């Protein structure tokens, strides 16, 4: 485990940087706060791709050090979404399953804050039931032809590439998780059509990405043919347990506390309850980060963090609204709230994961 004093130094450096950089604290800024200048400023300090080894252009830091930095950025509501997916899950996947050439091609660019990734998992007919994906990869000369449609692809209109989960063998009802593979797909390649999915708040972060005979060369297969399911589920530990699963609305809770101090909102003990839960959840989430660092499975623990944390994010929105707060940050949070307990696996799916871990199913 990293030395606690070192972590304090690291946290202090991040706080000092955040004080010096001009940005407006926002809710949900890891999902919606796309600011490539901010990303490059972070990268210049070694805070993007922190866990990428130095030989691949990263900072060679531990997961717990990355945890400390990301916590500080999220708590401040800083605009980190440009590099978020690449930093959180693409880089670990490339390190785990990528070829030497793929690592050299993508990891240094990710760490420089110049290469952004999106996620290509969900499809119009495959939401929670990910194993039912239909995007097909057909063998062709020197590679694969991909055809299908991916949805909820955050940032596809700005990112460079995405990791696509596709069928490389026909669906077999007796082995639902077999026959899937992962591909690194250039979002500007011929045959890729990106259409915005506008949210009820009028915002454009999500996209539908249609693939029509998109040629993917052999050297852009990630990992092994048929191993896609195992590979994507190992990504989910990173995707589900991090501080973005309970800090998305902390800037709103801060605003509510400040407004209460100013006498604009009534005092309510739920303020304390929410503070306690944020504090407790960071201990749980840190526990998962430690497990991931030690290479231990943490699916159930990650599911526990995400169920509690995303519920808390929504409860904070309700809290501010019920107190009578009126502020743009609350409106934004209300328009995003419904997504908190859906993205990255709905809380109902996660309760199923927990129930399986408890031996109930």
């Amino acid at each position, binding site marked *: 485990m990293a030395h606690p004093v070192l972590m304090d130094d690291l946290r202090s450096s991040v706080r000092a940087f955040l004080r010096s950089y001009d940005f407006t604290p926002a809710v949900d800024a890891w999902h919606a706060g796309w600011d490539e200048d901010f990303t490059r400023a972070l990268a210049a300090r070694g805070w993007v791709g922190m866990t990428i080894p130095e030989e691949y252009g990263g900072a060679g830091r531990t997961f717990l050090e990355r945890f400390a930095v990301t916590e500080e950025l999220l708590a401040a509501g800083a605009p980190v979404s440009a590099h978020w997916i690449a930093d959180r899950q693409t880089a670990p996947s490339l390190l785990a399953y990528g070829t030497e050439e793929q690592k050299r091609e993508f990891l240094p660019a990710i760490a420089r804050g110049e290469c952004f990734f999106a996620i290509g998992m969900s499809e119009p007919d495959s939401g929670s039931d990910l194993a039912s994906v239909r995007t097909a990869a057909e063998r062709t000369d020197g590679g694969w032809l991909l055809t299908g449609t991916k949805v909820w692809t955050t940032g596809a209109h700005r990112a460079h590439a995405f990791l696509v989960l596709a069928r490389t063998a026909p669906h077999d009802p007796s082995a639902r998780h077999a026959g899937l593979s992962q591909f690194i797909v250039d979002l500007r390649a011929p045959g890729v059509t990106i259409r915005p999915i506008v949210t009820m708040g009028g915002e454009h972060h999500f996209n539908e990405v249609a693939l029509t005979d998109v040629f993917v060369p052999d050297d852009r297969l990630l990992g092994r043919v048929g191993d896609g399911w195992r590979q994507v589920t190992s990504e989910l530990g990173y995707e589900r347990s991090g501080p973005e699963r309970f800090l998305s609305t902390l800037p709103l809770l*801060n605003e509510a506390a400040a407004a209460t101090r100013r006498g604009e909102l009534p005092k309510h003990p*739920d303020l*304390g309850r929410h503070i*306690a839960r*944020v*504090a*407790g*959840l960071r201990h749980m989430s840190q526990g998962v980060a430690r497990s991931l660092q030690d290479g231990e499975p943490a699916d159930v623990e990650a599911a*526990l963090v995400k*169920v509690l944390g995303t519920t808390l994010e929504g409860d904070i929105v309700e809290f501010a609204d019920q107190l009578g707060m009126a502020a743009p940050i609350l409106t934004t949070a209300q328009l995003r709230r419904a997504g908190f307990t859906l993205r990255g696996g709905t809380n109902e799916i996660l309760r199923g994961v927990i129930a399986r871990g408890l031996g109930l199913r």
Partner: protein
Amino acid sequence: MTVDPALQDMLTSVFSDHDPASPIGSLWKKLGSLGLARLTTPAGRGGSGAGWDEAAALLRTAASHGVPVPLPENDLLANWLLTEADLPSDESIRTACVLDETGTARSVPWAGDADRITLLWAAEDGWRTADVPASSLRIERAANLAGEPRDTVHAPLDATSGTRVGGHVAEEFMLRGALARALQMTGAMDGILRLSIDHATTRTQFGRPLAGFQAVQHLIADMAAEAALAKAATDAVLRDGLTPFNVAVARSCAGHATTTVVRNAHQVHGAIGTTAEHPLHRYTLPALAWRAEFGSLHHWDEHLSQAALSTDQDIWHLINDL
């Protein structure tokens, strides 16, 4: 938070062997002979000289087996006060309490069953403590929701001059008691979760175990999530220190977790869980009773609200003070 596996095995065996319905006399003797009755009391004072991690394992294991026993009172409160005041200790069963200005303390745990009571009160010149035989005090017996002794103690303050102790002692007494109850609550929640999983996987209705119903799975998953949060928040006090903020976080998380865990457990168990015969109440009632002791849930939530409102720091810096 980990302890020596051999210690954990010993704790599990001691409390599994005990019949919760039988009197605690023989159990107390056993705890004494194993060095568990005064686990954190310094070795030079007749204790085992262990720390909070070991105490946490002891309290959680007792609570997760539904065994009521005055371990926090004897070791973490009374013997701690004796150490602070440099007063002699022995194998007597002790409890401790804070007297008001009339010499009265209410809801004193186990006072009627203790050999001696360690008293703490505010004198004109500061805090004082005295260790007296229970027989020298007037004690009115009462009980908490779980039937554990919570008695009223009347002490003749003018007859006791007491020993001066530091000004920090009164606040630390409260924090130690509050943390002990949080640890016991997490132990009880472990027991409740175990009983609920057992029941859901063995009780069959509509031709399948209750666990086959998604609605039941989700009730139990939510219990597990809340219990895990409570455990993480109490473990954090052991690791990061017995500060008012850390204890308030633990008590808030454990207190709200108790709501979900107790409600859902009874819902999963159905009517049988409400009977005297079924063991569930030996866990659910103490969890609720402990939540109300050493500060109500509202008290701890309010403590954190005030902490946020009485500073210009943002909440994150309050939570994560460098």
